[in-house]
């Protein structure tokens, strides 16, 4: 089954995103990602419902966080 994950470079950014999305009533699950998914290895991701990717982008585009939404 397809999963949608917001991938970031640090756990600090992951927690920031977790809080921002929680505040916008988007269900999240913080998790460590398979290191092969990113160029530089170990990282964290925030799983979101795939139906909420557009809203998630709207929330995060106003921040300075570098992120990528992966469909895995």
């Amino acid at each position, binding site marked *: 089954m397809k999963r949608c994950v917001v991938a970031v*470079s*640090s*756990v*600090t950014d992951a*927690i920031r995103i977790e809080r921002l999305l929680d505040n916008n009533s988007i269900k999240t699950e913080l*998790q*460590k990602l398979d290191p092969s998914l990113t*160029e530089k*290895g170990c*990282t964290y991701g925030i799983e979101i419902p795939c139906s909420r990717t557009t809203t998630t982008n709207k929330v995060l585009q106003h921040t300075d966080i570098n992120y990528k939404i992966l469909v895995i």
Partner: protein
Amino acid sequence: MIYFDNAATSFPKPNTVYSEIRRCLSKYCGNPGRSDHKLSLDAARKIYSCRENISSLYNFSNPDAITFTYNATYALNLAIKARVKKGDHILISDIEHNAVLRPIHKLAADGFITFDIYKSGSDKEVISSINRLKKVNTSMIIANHYSNITSIVLPIDAIADYAHTHEIKLICDASQSSGVYPYQLDKSGISALCAPAHKGLYGIQGVGFIINCDGVVGDTVIEGGGGNNSSDRTMPAFLPDIYEAGTANTPGIAALDTAVDFIKKITVDEISYRENLLKKRFAEGLASIKNIYILGNPDGNGGTISFCHKNHTPADMGHYLSQNNICVRSGYHCSPLAHKTIGSGEGGTVRASFGYFNTDKEIDRVLSILDNFT
């Protein structure tokens, strides 16, 4: 026992600090930012909560720009070395602690920088001294906001304005002022503020931090694992990860988070007011004791006072007080520059430094014991 050594480390701590350390160690002390399990994630969340809490206390809007270190000395070394370039000229004050003097001296001895020492005093005197010493290559001013041996206070806002106007970085050593000075970092020209957790913030030893107001991502001093970007041989080039190699002191940071809650509840203004009252009472009492004299400025802000006896060394007086279960600190307090500034003799001074939990009764008791020191 009476504890007047709060400038070295505050004691006691708020009860909530003790209980949070126990709760952390028993409930959520995984390695933050390393794993997928609840203990690791909860530890990372607690550290982030502390970043937010510190940001709020210092009126600073970017929690990610806070770097945790292991003490203020480490923070100051890092803040300086991340920003300095070969050939720079640096200005430090005449009340700097060895946490600044020694790294600056080393950088100069290695031929990396040159430096000069500006005078403390009134706003006008400080700015005038800085202006006289400034060179075309002056890149950084370092200011120990509150002295650790007496109540000399540097005019940090005036220095920040000067630094901002002249495009010079300002590093603020807030080791003694944190918890008693109402910082407004979003509005100030401070480039980086360094502080320890275990003094006026009522946290524990083993934690310090830099608030990187200028967001500078410079050179690293320590490299290693941080739990992310593991395939990359270089440190992540962003805050806070670039400066946080190795496992964090999670119980210490959790304690700091709780300690900051305590400070916010009491308020910085109230703690400062209380410490100043205690110091005033002590200073007035000392003035009436034969053969004891005060050095430096007892009237400035901050709960610290230095004094000496005409007929005994500071070490002897410190030992006498220790024998009477009174905790003070004698000697140079790692601040030879400041002792030179206030005119201490050989042997330095005895320092009494007050905290929120001290009382008038304790002040009177210590004065009475000092009155019997012949």
